[in-house]
């Protein structure tokens, strides 16, 4: 063929291929960005996936959400049956990163409540820790390396190809990250006792910028009439006692941001000692085991039932 025919064919085929690629990805819509309500799960890259789901999937399908770092990421909201809750927590995320999700959710949805896991990890630093939460990823959902990776992991998980490393049911459609399935050989008793022997406990210092950002988040939620429910995540009793004054200072400082219309629960109070002093509540030095998750979710469920006695009706469900 001559150069002109070559150029013409190239341009036409490029347009066709690009349209096809974008069209297929639009149709698959793995993050629920384009085609409305459908069950969606995280397969890899929790940060980007949940961020993209915050555009439509979360606001259009849920009435409440949980926000926090890994300490709350493995809470399964399905346990609270009366309410449709999405767990928007992200492993390793701070309040700055979670705010990107909050902005989308409150702007596009009609949320009734927000549950915030108040662990020191949330406010120990500020700013984006990676480039995974960015508006550019929106168009990345039409074709990008992250999307290809997501397809690959969709295939691997759904076909149970490497269950030890890529558990098929690691995530569910309500944002539960059951990372215990991929976290092997952790002994909570040994982990907690080793920390206690070394007199180590979580850093509880609050980053001033993160503190302000948390305050802004709370104001934003209240402004949209979203009920704020904050809870101080359970800390292994031994470690809490070790750093009691630091933990209490953290709790006092954070509590100052909450006002009377909010709900604030401290799961490290003495009334919960039996739970926090039980090694089986945790899978390591702080993350919750199935038993711990059940405990936290039960407390939250009780609170929700008091706040919203009747089940909320969904026009679209």
């Amino acid at each position, binding site marked *: *063929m*001559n*150069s*002109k*025919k*070559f*150029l013409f*064919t*190239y341009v036409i*085929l*490029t347009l066709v*291929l*690009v349209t096809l*690629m974008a069209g297929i990805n639009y149709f698959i819509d793995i993050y629920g960005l384009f085609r409305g309500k459908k069950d969606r799960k995280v397969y890899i890259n929790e940060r980007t996936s949940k961020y993209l789901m915050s555009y439509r999937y979360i606001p259009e399908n849920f009435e409440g959400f949980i926000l926090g770092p890994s300490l709350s990421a493995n809470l399964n909201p399905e346990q609270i049956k009366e309410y449709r809750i999405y767990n928007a927590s992200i492993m390793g995320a701070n309040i700055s990163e979670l705010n990107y999700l909050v902005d989308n959710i409150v702007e596009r949805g009609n949320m009734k409540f927000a549950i915030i896991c108040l662990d020191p990890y949330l406010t120990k630093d500020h700013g984006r820790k990676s*480039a*995974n939460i*960015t508006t*550019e*990823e929106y*168009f*990345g959902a*039409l*074709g*990008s*390396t*992250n999307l*290809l*990776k997501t397809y*690959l992991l969709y295939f691997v998980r759904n076909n149970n190809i490497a269950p030890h490393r890529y558990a098929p049911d690691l995530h569910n459609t309500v944002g539960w990250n059951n990372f215990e399935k991929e976290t092997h050989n952790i002994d909570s008793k040994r982990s907690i006792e080793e920390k206690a022997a070394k007199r180590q406990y979580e850093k509880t210092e609050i980053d001033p910028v993160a503190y302000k950002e948390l305050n802004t988040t709370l104001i934003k939620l209240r402004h949209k009439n979203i009920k704020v429910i904050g809870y101080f995540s359970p800390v292994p009793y031994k470690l809490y006692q070790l750093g009691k004054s630091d933990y209490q200072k953290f709790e006092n400082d954070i509590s100052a941001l909450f006002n009377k219309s909010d709900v604030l629960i401290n799961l490290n109070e003495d009334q919960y000692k039996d739970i926090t002093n039980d090694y089986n509540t945790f899978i390591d030095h702080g993350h919750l085991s199935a038993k711990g998750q059940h405990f936290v979710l039960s407390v939250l469920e009780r609170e929700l039932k008091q706040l919203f006695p009747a089940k909320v009706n969904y026009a679209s469900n």
Partner: protein
Amino acid sequence: MLFNSFEFLAFFLPITLTVYFLLNKYGFDKPGKVWLLACSLFFYAWWKPIFLLLICTSMVINYFAGQKLNYIENPKTRKIFYITCLLGNLSVLLYYKYTNFIVDNFNLLLTEDIVIDKIALPLAISFFTFQKFAYITDSYKGKTKGYDFLNFCLFVAFFPQLIAGPIVHHKDIMPQFQDESKKQFNTENFLKGLYIFLLGLIKKIAIADTFAIVANAGYGDATHLSFVDSWITSIAYAVQLYFDFSGYSDMAIGAGLLFNITLPINFNSPYKATNLQDFWRRWHITLGNFLREYIYIPLGGNRKGELLTLNNLMVTFLVGGIWHGANWTFLIWGFMHGFGLVVHRLWQKTKIVISDSVGLLITLLYVNFAWVFFRATSVGDALAVLKSMVGIGSVSYTGSKVLTDIYIYPTLVAGMFFLFLKNPPQLAKEFRFNTQHLLYMLGLTLIGLIYLNSITSNDFLYFDF
């Protein structure tokens, strides 16, 4: 503006190209050139508009100074004027690039405490200063008489080569802007240019940026690398730098060809070199040519005896080192290459022949060791990496902490493989208007689009120089 950015590919390049050829098509040659110049300056100003003033002032002064230099008849006046011009250009470069370095070392040496603000380095200053050195030097020799002002400005500012080369010579480029046959859209050049551009784009965004993940992780923790990680880190950077810089050069050459302008080849599979001299014939070729023509040869080259030849080699590479950046690490890198070339030259005298494969391995290892200084942010960091590489001190021999993302493994393997395949200029020679190449181009376009639409892209490494 980056070649691999959406604004460049979707707006800047198509608009510049279309208007340029439309103006030429309807006989508006001069407005066409003015348009191309304006677009090139806009391309430069995209980063920091304030430095537009610097490049424009420098361009105008150098043009008129060069033209005047051509016609000064008194040799003494001519020489004084020439040196003044060189010093003028040098002082601008010194101010922007080396002031902080000089003050820091002055403080260190004399335990003074002079504090000055960090001076922002204007983009591409090292590159366009080099071009002007060449122009002024050739004007001193009377070789640039009658150069057209607009063509000169285009030669300096032509956007494909403006930021990071290839370092073009006025005698290669200016005639092309005067050539009538190059003013009309040429489908063959366009397609060939696009093919080279796409190859360069993939080298940069798919391969170099993937190796960057490993190299950055390693150099980010340079003092705690295990034996294995120090090797992985150093090799990752060597590969990253090649694909990054040669990818940029390919894109520049490709973009130039879209406008029917042929830019010189800058890389010729350098890691296939069988000795250090061969390496410098393949790596950053246009820089090597400039250093040879304007430093090594004026110093006497190899014409003044063996000892002076070795000295000239060393001085040339020390200049090359410091040209790259104001840091002792670059000076050491330049020294290592100068020293390596001296040893190579002496070795040649022994007439002992080593096989190509052994030569290739020695060259690769030596170049890789030298890159550690090029990349590390301090001499201390570089020494820490090198110590781990040779197993000196308390080096751990545990597994890798820099190779954590298994999803990048296929690209890493492919990158290592591509190092030893044909390079884009060679592939471009084989380009034909057939189905096979049509499929190649479609594949490259799709891969390019997917990577462009991802969030992995970094700036080009040579923008720092």
